[in-house]
């Protein structure tokens, strides 16, 4: 073991420690600040107060906004999973001329639909359809934005399930819907879970669309409400922000842990087994 090697190791671990600190300190702040009476931007030892949580509970829009977020993300995820599964199954099993071109075009367009470029037309569309300020309208638009990518991912799962399962069921006399229910859905369940989690996380963190399409503050989801947590003096209200931020992130973390434990996020495409 030469001195050079030791020096190299020390340098390497120092670099790792700095990188780790860079990502850990914000998380530590999120874990400690809500329990501190007067939080600053520094990470300190909390005095374990529940006052901040009380303040959040008393805020007229904070907790309802989390419920709104739940409604929007679960509604969108259910729609996305159901529609992407059917579309991907059809696209995977039926040979259409120009199928792949269609998929790539969809994927390309999807980044435009919910992107900044389409803000004005989307707003106008929602107004014309009387879907402004409605959760349903927002769910439909968010679904439209997520569907192309979801179909794209889902098709990969569908492609990787052998056709002989379905053919076998067909020879036994199963109808197409029975095949989907008995065979295809159980086989691609990890894929459905992946798409569902991905959709929930996407909607949960989406700020622009609800900000644009919902004007009633009672209907706003948590991502938008976070933006309003200021003190009367126009300063960021760190007590509220940190506590609300913690409440806002916990459901998503729990969902990841649950789904990962249940389905393990196995991607079984790519390698022929």
């Amino acid at each position: 073991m030469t001195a050079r090697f030791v020096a190299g190791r020390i340098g390497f671990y120092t670099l790792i420690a700095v990188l780790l600190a860079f990502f850990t300190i914000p998380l530590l702040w999120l874990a400690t600040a809500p329990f501190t009476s007067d939080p600053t931007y520094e990470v300190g030892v909390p005095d374990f107060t529940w006052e901040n949580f009380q303040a959040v509970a008393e805020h007229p829009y904070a907790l309802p906004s989390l419920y709104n977020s739940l409604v929007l993300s679960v509604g969108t995820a259910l729609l996305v999973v159901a529609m992407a599964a059917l579309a991907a199954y059809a696209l995977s099993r039926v040979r259409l001329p120009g199928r792949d071109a269609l998929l790539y075009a969809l994927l390309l367009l999807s980044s435009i639909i919910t992107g900044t470029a389409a803000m004005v037309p989307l707003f106008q569309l929602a107004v014309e359809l009387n879907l402004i300020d409605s959760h349903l309208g927002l769910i439909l638009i968010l679904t439209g934005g997520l569907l192309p990518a979801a179909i794209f991912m889902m098709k990969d799962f569908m492609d990787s399930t052998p056709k002989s399962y379905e053919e076998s069921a067909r020879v036994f006399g199963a109808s197409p819907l029975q095949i989907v229910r008995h065979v295809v859905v159980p086989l691609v369940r990890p894929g459905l879970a992946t798409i569902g989690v991905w959709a929930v996380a996407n909607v949960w963190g989406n700020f622009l669309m609800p900000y644009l399409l919902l004007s009633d503050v009672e209907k706003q989801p948590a991502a938008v409400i976070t933006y309003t947590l200021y003190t009367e003096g126009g300063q960021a209200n760190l007590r509220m922000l940190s506590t609300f931020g913690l409440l806002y992130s916990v459901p998503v973390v729990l969902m990841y842990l649950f789904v990962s434990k249940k389905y393990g996020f196995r991607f079984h495409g790519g390698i022929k087994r």
Partner: protein
Amino acid sequence: MAAIELRGLTKVYPGGVKALDALDLDIPDGEFFALLGPSGCGKTTLLRTIAGLEIATGGAVVIGDRDVTGVQPGGRDVAMVFQDYALFPHMDVTENIAYPLRIKKVAKSARRAKAVEVGTRLGLEHLMDRRPGQLSGGQQQRVALARVMATQAQAFLFDEPLSNLDARLRLEARTFLKKLQRELGVTTVFVTHDQAEALAMADRMAVMESGHIRQIGTPAEVFQRPANTFVAGFIGSTPMNLLDGAVRGDTLDVAGCKVGVPSSAEGRLSDGEKIVYGVRPEYMSYSAEPAEGALGGKVAIVENLGASHLVTLDVNDVIVQAVVPEGSEPSLGDDGYAVPRRDRALVYRDGELV
């Protein structure tokens, strides 16, 4: 139980590939029938067309006096075992075996009882709660067989049923499958690319090449009297000697040697005619001494087949192979003489048996 009849069956894939070309085939009730051929010959397409998974471009499929050409797979009353068995990975063995009955809306308790009955018959009783992923290849195959047995279909279709098993297990499964088919008496069509498998298991077999049936017959007929040089070259674990030759009066001139006219071709050849002379290595008697009507040359290769040896002779730059029993195998470079059995040798004219 039902006979299967194919009339002028044609399948053309989009893009113009003709997988089946006007096939006629009759498989009587209860027969164990093999479709044999090299890959790409259309044997799997034929099986899938019988099952209804491929739609015939022309012709008819008749199962038990019922024309099912336009009928969906589920309405044909056939059951199929796929090459990869296609056992549903999310269902246990009982559910897998009972699945066809679930589709037929049999009550849950009745179908479980049937699954256990069939599973027990195939020696699966202690595995009924396992998932397919927890079974060995041989066990998976038996579950797939149990599942088709539970359907009580008119005919069984097996797509390469043994190809996913390792070599030793394959021999056991071969015997097992033949015994099972005999006991059940259900008309069974199976596809294989392994000629030994077809010879061993089938009551009758069809040898296919590029969408055509080249010969139909019992394994003994196909082995002893291949109808053409394609079948002759395809059947047999050691390939048949197919040697170019010509008729010279009462004898044949093959690879520079004089051999007798095979008894099957006697009186059917004309002088000077070009022919192909066919004889299996197993139907040659080998000696180290010159003999009349022998193909003589230098020993080029000796391959050990276990109880016998395959000797390759270089006869005037033509390769001739003969099977020699153990104990009398020659050494490399020796002179050797192989005398074809006249009652087993064959003559082909323009690729067809004379």
